[in-house]
């Protein structure tokens, strides 16, 4: 079995519709969940805003919360335009319902750019209805009324009325066309731009049940699901009767699935009264699997194939400008280097889990999923249940990082529940299941060549990228785009691509593709800069040239803007100043700074890392400076700084700790945090973050701060030791000087 290539557009299909806010027309039907929660007494002004007679405001949070803070941030936007005080507001999580809410997913750092306009409009439309209702009651023109703190005021007559008193009437008025309403001047924001704590945090610090794994339903059984350790294997037989005799076990059942990793795959479910007991019963489970030809795949085999592919010309061009081969021949100086990096795993701290109840032909699901609608489609297809008969509750998620864009666990929970009509079932994966059944960040290999002219200018650039693919298409997250920096800035340039097969399911991991490409391109460009006798910021500023917008990439229904060289210049220049960047050091002293820049997910980030390296090669990050440009407005500064720091530390972890997913005989070798390390508190240096506010629409922060920290770190390691890290996973021996 090969992982199906679900390209990013797969889950953007629906989201594109909402991009312009058209789906979020104010006259849409109201959210069922909220209507219920808000109670009959509350007036629903639109699908997002309900106001009770006592003035209590309920705002619906539309997207899955994975720790990116969206359940707090999107309602903040609505509340500000609605002109209520934040402490008046109660937040309710929406059900998954694209017909009402448009796209509801957590991915690609898209929520801010997609919802900034529609959420403001939802608040403004509701406010306008309240104002008109009050004005009508007073017999004054609505234009003479103002609002604030959940009240409508008429200055001239000194009258004032709470939203609660006019909400019922307001709900009967026809909503205005959002395009006709004037939105707030940013200087009048009272909630947007103010550091605001997470709305669920008071419950979390008390340990109240709030995550998917905490779901409990009356009569619920706990389940594990054993799948083939070799990806793509098929079920043949199992000793189910013996397993059924184990303590606490209610049932053991084999389930047949299909060939797609992001769907239902073959497995054996064990159900019982307590998860530990069913997981323990698994020790007695003996399954015979048919591995097909999947056991031939291995990490060593990939490396061999990559070497063979790199020895040949690239199979296909992703982009070719000018005549790079001729330009390389003509160059006064050339630089070549090979880089490689491994498969990585998301390792969300909350292992995959999902609860489902199948009753009377209907499936109800409590899912910590980043893409609930895509899960609904998968469950519908795998089990033959119409989409309308599937209800999905979006439950707070203990970490996503892209793993929960895939819904394999949802399909499994639903399939198990279908075997047990009327009995709720909670499926929970063990950490070992989670580590060994991921959708991994694909490994890759790059052979770079660059040409410099006599003046040290970059005149030619070539990358031969070796990746994983099937039927001539890269696997999910294994693609390279034609806009990869410095494409578009070097006249003679080629990005070529060759592919090999793998049975490992691949997926998007936080800042997908960028988390690898930033490392290799920005590290190699540092080599190029050195050959040209300059430092990397200088080379990048030369390449950027005059402020202008470079062409972007086309997604169906949504154009992804390309790099704006002026915005890139802004963050590069600012981080150089902020970090007291001194240029390339003249000697390798064991302590140095490194720099990198990367543009991804519409965000511009330049970062400097200061490291010390012991003679044995132990690398210690001493300090990080980060400058980001994500537009004119940081909506929730508290969440924003937290995201940026977390992303940078995530990048440090990927770089320094030697993390790699390796494969032997078709199966993943790692199992838990002892052999797949993630960052801990003791590697974290002080991190200074600054946002450059520019006159651009606000964009997302879940991802773009991550990619540049990796090359900045290794460029610093090079400056400190003279040793270039061209191959990950990192090992201290690579940079030892003793």
């Amino acid at each position, binding site marked *: 079995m090969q992982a199906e290539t679900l390209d990013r557009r797969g889950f953007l299909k629906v989201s594109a519709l909402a991009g312009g806010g058209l789906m979020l027309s104010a006259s849409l039907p109201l959210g069922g969940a909220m209507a219920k929660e808000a109670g009959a007494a509350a007036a629903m002004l639109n699908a997002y805003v309900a106001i009770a007679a006592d003035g209590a405001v309920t705002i619906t949070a539309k997207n899955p919360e994975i720790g990116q803070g969206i359940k707090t941030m999107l309602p903040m936007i609505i509340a500000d335009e609605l002109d209520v005080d934040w402490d008046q507001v109660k937040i309710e999580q929406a059900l998954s319902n694209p017909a009402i809410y448009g796209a509801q997913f957590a991915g690609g750092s898209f929520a801010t750019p997609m919802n900034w306009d529609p959420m403001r409009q939802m608040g403004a439309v509701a406010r306008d209805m309240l104002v008109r209702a009050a004005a009508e009651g007073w017999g004054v023109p609505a234009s003479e009324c103002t609002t604030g703190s959940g009240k409508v005021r008429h200055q001239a007559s000194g009258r004032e009325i709470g939203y609660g008193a006019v909400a019922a009437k307001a709900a009967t008025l026809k909503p205005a066309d959002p395009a006709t309403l004037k939105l707030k001047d940013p200087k009048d924001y009272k909630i947007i731009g103010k550091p605001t704590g997470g709305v669920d945090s008071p419950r979390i610090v008390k*340990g109240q049940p709030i995550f998917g794994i905490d779901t409990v339903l009356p009569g619920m059984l706990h389940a594990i699901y054993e799948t083939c350790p070799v990806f793509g294997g098929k079920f043949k037989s199992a000793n189910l009767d013996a397993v059924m005799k184990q303590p606490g076990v209610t049932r053991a059942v084999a389930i047949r699935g299909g060939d797609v990793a992001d769907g239902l795959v073959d497995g054996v479910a064990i159900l019982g009264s307590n998860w530990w007991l069913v997981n323990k019963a698994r020790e007695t489970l003996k399954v015979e699997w048919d591995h097909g030809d999947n056991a031939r795949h291995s990490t060593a085999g990939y490396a061999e194939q990559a070497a063979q592919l790199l020895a040949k010309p690239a199979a296909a061009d992703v982009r070719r400008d000018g005549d790079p081969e001729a330009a390389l021949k003509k160059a006064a100086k050339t630089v070549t280097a090979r880089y490689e990096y491994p498969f990585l795993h998301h390792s969300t701290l909350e*292992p995959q889990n999902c609860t489902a109840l199948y009753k009377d032909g209907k499936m109800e699901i409590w899912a910590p999923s980043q893409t609930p609608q895509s899960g609904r489609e998968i469950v519908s297809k795998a089990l033959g249940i119409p989409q309308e008969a599937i209800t999905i509750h979006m439950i707070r998620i203990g970490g996503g*990082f892209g793993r929960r864009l895939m819904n394999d666990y949802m399909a499994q929970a639903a399939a198990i529940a279908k075997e047990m009509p009327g009995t709720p079932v909670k499926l929970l994966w063990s*950490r070992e299941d989670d580590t060994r059944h991921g959708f991994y960040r694909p490994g890759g290999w790059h052979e770079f060549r660059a040409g410099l002219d006599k003046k040290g200018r970059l005149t030619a650039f070539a990358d031969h990228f070796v990746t994983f693919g099937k039927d001539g298409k890269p696997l999910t997250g294994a693609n390279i785009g034609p806009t990869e920096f410095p494409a578009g800035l070097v006249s003679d340039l080629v990005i070529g691509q060759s592919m090999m097969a793998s049975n490992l399911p691949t997926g998007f991991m936080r800042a997908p593709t960028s988390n690898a490409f930033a490392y290799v391109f920005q590290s190699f460009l540092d080599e190029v800069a050195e050959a040209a006798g300059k430092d990397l910021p200088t080379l990048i500023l030369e390449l950027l040239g005059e402020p202008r917008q470079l062409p972007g990439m086309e997604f169906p229904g949504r154009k992804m803007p390309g790099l704006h060289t002026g915005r890139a210049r802004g963050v590069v220049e600012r981080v150089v100043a902020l970090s007291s960047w001194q240029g390339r050091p003249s000697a390798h002293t064991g302590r140095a700074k490194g720099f990198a820049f990367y543009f991804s997910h519409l965000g511009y980030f330049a970062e400097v890392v200061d490291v010390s390296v012991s003679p044995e090669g132990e690398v210690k990050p001493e300090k990080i400076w980060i400058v980001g440009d994500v537009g004119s407005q940081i909506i929730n500064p508290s969440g924003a700084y*937290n995201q940026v720091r977390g992303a940078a530390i995530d990048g440090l972890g990927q770089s320094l700790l030697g993390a790699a997913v390796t494969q032997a005989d078709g199966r993943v070798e790692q199992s838990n945090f002892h052999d797949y390390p993630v960052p801990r*508190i003791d590697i974290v240096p002080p991190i200074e973050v600054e946002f450059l506010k520019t006159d651009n629409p606000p964009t997302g922060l879940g991802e773009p701060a991550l990619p540049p920290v990796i090359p900045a770190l290794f460029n610093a390691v090079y400056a400190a030791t003279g040793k270039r890290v061209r191959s990950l996973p990192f090992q201290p021996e690579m940079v030892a000087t003793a």
Partner: protein
Amino acid sequence: MRYQVTINGKARKLDADPEMPLLWVLRDELGMPGTKYGCGAGLCGACTVHVDGVATRACQTPVGSIGKAKVTTIEAIGDTPVGAKVQQAWLDLDVMQCGYCQAGQIMSATALLAENPKPSDADIDAAMAGNICRCATYTRIRQAIRQAAGASAETHHAG
């Protein structure tokens, strides 16, 4: 086997395999899911509880080994003055992102401060290195512990 264990000051009776880890007794037998499963191997700290005041990994603690020891979980840590201070510091500094690890972080931080009311940065790192935060909120975890210890946080809430 039948047991009586003392959890959050209350005697709880249960019938369980003596090898069953306290984590699963709490989560699936007693309906107290605040204590989280992360690794099942004592590697991540998400399941940290206090056993007689000592930070302990519930996933590595067989229920049969508890005896008369007093177990405190995240659900009741706020009843202690140090625990309440730590919880408040977590909210003041808006520490969490996904929040999944934070019960374990708060339990470890509270045990640290109960034993060492004025920890150094090195003490904090040493005491907290067993607790993974996959969102990497470590900067604010340090700040929150310092604040709960009475020192002023280094940077503002938004920083």
